[in-house]
């Protein structure tokens, strides 16, 4: 179950990781080995088995729709790398 270098680059784009060349090389090797190990799940015939949706057999719990206080804005922005007024400042998107 090898994974190609191109696939690693494609997955890195999906995962929004700007990997270095060295990282791409290392991950190509490592992910290949890991995928081979986890790939054994393919040997089971599970056509009639439902996927797990929740580890417990529980029914939905409904809560009352009660309004609560939100965090003060200064708290919300307390850890922000960049703030402008009541907005998070980011570089241009285009």
């Amino acid at each position, binding site marked *: 179950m090898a994974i190609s270098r191109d696939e690693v680059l494609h997955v890195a784009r999906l995962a*929004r990781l700007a990997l270095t060349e060295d990282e791409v090389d290392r*991950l190509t090797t490592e992910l290949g080995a890991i995928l081979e190990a986890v790939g054994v*799940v393919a040997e*089971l015939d599970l056509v009639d088995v439902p*996927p797990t949706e929740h*580890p417990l057999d529980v029914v939905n719990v409904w809560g009352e729709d009660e309004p609560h206080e939100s965090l003060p804005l200064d708290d919300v922005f307390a*850890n*922000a790398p960049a703030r402008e007024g009541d907005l998070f400042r980011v570089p241009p998107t285009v």
Partner: protein
Amino acid sequence: MAPVVDTLRLTAEDAIGLVQRGDVSAGELHAAYLEAIEERDGELHAYLRTVEEADGASIPIALKDVISTRGVETTAGSRILEGYVPVFDATVAARCRAAGLTLLGKTNTDEFAMGSSTENSAWGPSRNPWDPALVPGGSGGGTAAAVSAGLAPWGLGSDTGGSIKQPSALCGNVGLRPTYGSVSRFGVVAFASSLDQIGPVAKTVRDVALLYSIIAGRDRCDSTTVELPEEVRLPEDERVDGLRIGVPRQLADLDAIEPGVRAAFERSLELAEELGAELGECDLPLSYRYGMPCYYLVAPAEASSNLARYDGVRYGLRTEADTYDGMVERTRDDGFGPEPKRRIMLGTYALSAGYYEAFYGQAQKVRTLLIREHREALEPFDVIATPTSPAVAFPIGDKAADPLAMYACDLLTIPSCLAGLPGLSIPCGLSDGLPVGLQLLGPQFGENTLFRLGHALERALGFDTVPERLR
């Protein structure tokens, strides 16, 4: 002159007694632990940071650094959260505070709780109090090392595939991974949400039960939580007459289990029989063949989604760039260490178009089989017993370059995590002078039974939780 408190042997229960009788104040006890940390943590690196002032009227507690603590930096062992100071408490932290517990500090963890040795912490590894050349286990190695070295009477960890139980086994103390849904994860840095649980680590089963009673129960901020169907009972019985223990037949064929671990495990089973338990065999064949592969698809897939939030916008590290996309991608490359990157990549791959059904979809079906297998195995038994870790603590650096060797550490802890079941690890002996953990697994919400058996065994075993070199 403050009274001298020797923190090395002090259990949480005894510490509470000291404070309630007025023998020491909460502040003096807190200070005694800080002194012990000052003395011994330079070598062990169990703590990432400590809190100077006692902020409660009871005894101290150590919290793993994935648990948000208002006003106290919380990094999850990652550079991407360096300097992050939560503006609210995790529910478990708030419940500890409400019980009067004083926050002693934040303990080291593998980055985002991903690992079995704490070597993946961006802030350097913790060391095992029994032998500082060895790992304390992980991801919760910091909490486990702190409890064993008398640097905290008890602490909280988080467990996705063994991060509470395995470090407790390797450091020789007691750790509980509770039933999925019994403890709130609100405010805890998420790794794999269908698996993550918070649980206690302490020197005794009674301490673990007591701390579990403080943190467990429904929280409106975590919709997976429920009220416990029965109250937590602090165990007292010396005997366990009639308790039925199943031992998986497949353990005999697992070469990964070291002979010394097997010997200590078998001695503890004999002891359980002497205490009145009835032993029998059960079967978990799929669990040991497919548990690890299933886990390393489900957990990374969920992690890749959970860790998408670290984008340099609202909190945490930001690496500046000319465009938004460049900023996000560079921030994530700079901020995440090798293990989170591996798991994000693995998880993203397993969820991507073309591979979803073969990997993630298939793993979720395997998980259904493992849940069924555990349910059937537990039907004639109250408890299933296995070693916690197939091996004792290993040297720092030994597995660091081989992800699959590291993943194999959790062979025995993973399957029941996938099944949502509670597991208690208690120290059951030594192998080459290093602690061996006994894992007791029960049905959902079967914690009281685990406490009862764990307590009776703990008394009968008489294991000294203080590392030999510190006695």
